């Protein structure tokens, strides 16, 4: 208001005019409310609830943020789940190929159909590991800016000075076979009536490991304990008696060599001839054992060796290599380095749990962990077994090739079907599905909260156009009436009624 000078006769008129102006201002304010939909253009106009709107705004902003996190995490989980189901179906295809009763026929690369198929299936699995959402590599743990795995070619064939899987398998094959071709076992000529068998080294991880001897030979005695044992024939065994030598292979599988005493000469496979001289019989037993172990070293051992090499290459960090050359006399594994070995997994390999490598806060107190690493046990197991199939090849002239291949496929198929107690692909899928469902719950809770808060904010900051419209109408009536009365009053002066 303006304060006019005191004592002016026009004070009342001025106040009337001021009241009209105030009404006009109020009308302007209402019109503004109607056009902007907002109660006030400043915080003061919201009165005591001004502070509340600040809090509500902050909550709404956080909810929008949670919404963004939800949609990003949802997309990422979707991409990972797609990749995992792709990996699952490729895994299934490999298992089907190796368990089928296809005849053992080799192509020009020395591989069976299942093996050459495995190369492309490995390719598919590795591409799935490198799947991206936006710029992020989702199978790299927290190192989302790096691809998760190296290329198929590098993994199988190496990269310059870095050895690939094929080289690692070849080195391990030499180390497991040993110089004598007996898988690092020592079976010296019989001493009198005693046949002994022992590991070439108690500490070496390579070759067969003697696990035990079970003798049913009449009159024979077993002495010693792994890794060095012997059988002494006290008298000649009876025809048909058997003796079993249990061996552990590099991949942890067991194999038993069973030899049977026979009176036939020459003996059949896995038999030894009983000679009246018990010392000669012992010599026959030693010869039969050497033949049987040598045979096993050409069939089951290469398969188990390749599986072990693939485990060392894919499942340990850093990868384990045979200490050599020379490899055939090596007795230890050493850590591979990035200079001499291809690192198949190129993502983050920290100690945090894989899921925790990607976190999304999807609600005020809800955080979802959905990170994945390609080197998680379930995933690296699949890669290792498909890769070992893809990496091995056979010579058509090798008489043991078919048996060795059978030993390999039997192991690969067992491993790919999953081992009890080990993480499986479906475990990861289930965990991600749980994360997704947490996200969905958070999303609906957030949506409800957001609706409530928006409503509340609207009630504080907003105006109802009906109310404003009604207020404008009332004001209009007031204003018109005031103006009319003011006009009438201005005529009510004695001046107008005085005689001229």
């Amino acid at each position: 208001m303006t304060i006019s000078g005191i004592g002016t006769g026009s004070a009342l008129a001025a106040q009337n005019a001021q009241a009209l102006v105030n009404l006009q201002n109020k009308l302007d304010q209402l019109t503004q409310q109607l056009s902007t939909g907002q109660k006030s253009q400043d915080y003061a106009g919201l009165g005591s609830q001004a502070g509340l709107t600040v809090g509500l705004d902050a909550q709404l902003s956080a909810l929008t943020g949670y919404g963004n996190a939800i949609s990003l995490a949802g997309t990422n989980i979707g991409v990972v789940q797609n990749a995992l189901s792709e990996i699952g179906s490729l895994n299934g295809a490999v298992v089907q190929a190796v368990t089928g009763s296809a005849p053992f026929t080799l192509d020009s690369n020395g591989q069976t159909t299942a093996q050459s198929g495995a190369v492309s299936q490995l390719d598919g699995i590795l591409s799935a590991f490198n799947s991206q959402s936006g710029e992020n590599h989702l199978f790299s743990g927290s190192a989302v800016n790096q691809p998760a795995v190296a290329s198929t070619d590098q993994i199988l064939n190496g990269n310059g000075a870095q050895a690939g899987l094929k080289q690692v398998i070849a080195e391990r094959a030499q180390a497991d076979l040993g110089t004598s071709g007996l898988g690092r076992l020592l079976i010296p000529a019989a001493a009198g009536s005693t046949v002994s068998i022992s590991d070439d080294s108690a500490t070496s991880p390579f070759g067969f490991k003697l696990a035990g001897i079970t003798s049913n030979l009449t009159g024979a005695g077993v002495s010693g304990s792994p890794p060095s044992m012997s059988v002494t024939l006290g008298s000649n065994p009876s025809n048909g008696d058997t003796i079993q030598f249990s061996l552990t292979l590099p991949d942890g599988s067991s194999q038993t060599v069973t030899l049977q005493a026979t009176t036939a000469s020459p003996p059949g496979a896995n038999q030894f001839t009983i000679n009246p001289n018990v010392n000669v019989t012992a010599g026959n037993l030693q010869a039969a054992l050497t033949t049987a172990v040598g045979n096993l070293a050409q069939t089951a051992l290469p398969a188990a060796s390749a599986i072990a090499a693939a485990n060392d290459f894919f499942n340990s960090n850093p990868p384990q290599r045979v200490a050599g050359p020379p490899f055939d006399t090596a007795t230890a594994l050493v850590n591979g380095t990035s200079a001499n070995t291809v690192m198949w997994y190129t993502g983050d390999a920290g100690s945090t749990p894989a899921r925790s490598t990607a976190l999304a806060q999807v609600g005020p107190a809800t955080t979802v962990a959905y990170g994945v690493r390609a080197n998680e046990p379930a995933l690296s197991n699949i890669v290792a077994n498909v890769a070992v199939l893809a990496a091995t090849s056979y010579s058509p002239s090798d008489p043991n090739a078919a048996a060795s291949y059978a030993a390999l496929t039997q192991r690969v198929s067992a491993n790919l079907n999953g081992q009890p107690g080990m993480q499986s692909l479906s475990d990861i899928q289930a965990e991600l599905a749980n994360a997704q469902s947490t996200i969905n719950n958070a999303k609906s809770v957030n949506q409800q909260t957001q609706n409530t808060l928006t409503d509340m904010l609207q009630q504080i900051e907003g105006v109802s156009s009906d109310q404003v419209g009604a207020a404008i109408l009332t004001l209009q009536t007031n204003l018109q009436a005031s103006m009319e009365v003011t006009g009438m009053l201005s005529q009510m002066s004695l001046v107008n009624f005085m005689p001229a």
Partner: protein
Amino acid sequence: MSLIDALSTAMSGLRAAQAGLTVTAGNVANASTPGYVVESPALVETASGNAVGVDVTGVNRTLDQLVQSQMWTETSGGSYADAAAQLYGQLQQVYSTPGSAGAFDKAFNNFTAAMQALATSPASAAAQTGALSAAQQFAQSLNGMSSGIQGLRTQAEQGIAADVQQANAAMQRIAQINQQLTANPAQDATAAQLEDQRDQAITQLSQLMNIKVVQSGNNQVAIFTGSGAQLVGTQAGTLSFDTRGALSPGLTWSADPSKDGVGTITLTSPGGDTTDLIANKSIQSGQIAAYLQMRDQILPQAQGQIDALASQMAQALSNQTTAGTAVTAGAQAGFSVNVGNLLPGNSAQITYTDAGNVQHTVTIVRVDDPGALPLPSPSDPNQQVVGVNFTGGMGSVVSQLNAALGTQLQFSNPSSNLLQVLNAVPAVTVGSLSATATTTSLTSGSPQLPLFLDGTTPITGAITGAGSQDTGLAARIAVNPAIVANPSSLIVYQVGPPTPAGDPTRPNFIFNQLNNAQLTFPAQGGSGGQSPPFTGTLTDYLSQVMSQQAQAANAATNLQQGQDIVVNALQQRLSTTSGVSIDQEMSDLITLQNTYGANARVMTTIQQLMTTLMQAVQ
């Protein structure tokens, strides 16, 4: 008695009617002149012998002086309320429209949302630059609010300067009229006109500041300030105001001229004495008081609020608290903690219980400027704050602490920068010791980072003799240039081993600190006075600040409306007695016309009588 006597009586009646007509004409002519007080002719009956006549001695002003002096008092209040409401309205504009892009809290919400987005996709370069630019916008929004507030302070300062000039003009006018009335004591129309003008000048002055008006004899008025210093008598005093141009947050009013950063109002009396009207709180109302209150209290408080926001927010992101290690020495027990990385403004906290089992909190603040020591104690005696100068090395620190707290606690320095505290007497139990230091490195291995800097200085709330770093921080706060140059610093918190690209640790930390950290905001930023500090999240504080500001603005508007009603009522009362009523004047006119006619009729009758007499004599 004779016919001639009657004739002269009739003549005096005609003169009186003419004078009345002049006054009525003047009233009608000035019906809408501001400050015009309705006048009436002063009529006196005269007698000479048996003849009774009427004489016009002058002109009377029809004025209710009681209402008038009330009016002046309320006018001061009214213009104070008007100016305050207007300035509060302008302050509200600094906070912008609720919910709009420029709103008070929008930049903060955008900042936290950007951190949230970054925590979800840490490796994304777009998210990193997005978070960085949101941080910059938040800093700029604080800068903008600060300059808005200081702009209003400058405006208030200039308003005071203009008001002081107006006040001087009004005071001189009043003194001048006082002198003229002394020279011409007659109660005539000229005097009435001078009095009208003087009242007008007093009204102007009362709009600017609260005054006391004392009427004395001979039509003189004397005007005093609220505290009793004379502004105007027959001579006018002079107000002077030393304007300081653009104001900044550090410039505040002080009675000590060497520390005063803003203008002050000085009254120089005609005799040459000077009085500081701000120091003795003379100006409590009127437009000048509103400007002063804005400049020295309301706006500095608003500045203090956003300064506290800037400081606490920056420190929430950069401060790292290390808990002490428990130690024993014989029967004594306590804690030790490394204080080597404390910067000025950083602190160590001790809790202990005394013999009466009362819990005490001691905050040891590093204050390297001896000019700022000792620090003022908080109102709660169980919360001690001790400022310690660290520049003299650990030995000096220990002796300062033992001097301040030695009766309960025993401090020592067992090795390098380790500070050890033990109970000095068996009845005391030391509960905890921790040190809070500001991280200055971007890759310290912890998620804390100096995201915001005060120019190039870390934000620690350092206290020096010149004041706290917090003062005006909102005007200076900026995003660390090293992070601007390398936005990946928002993710990478260590170099060996390097932080993985997708590691959300740091953005998660920032988001949590911004949203959930319980911070303590100094009382001056909250609601002023000795109230306890406000503890809450940044959003809680924003909310609290906005409530308080909105309520203050509403209170100012309500006061203005209330004061308007009072002033209006007084103005109406004054105008019913002192205003020109055209109807009244018209009816006076008719009366005067009749009086004039009647007097003329008397003269006609006398003339007829005279004629009759003459004819009789013929």
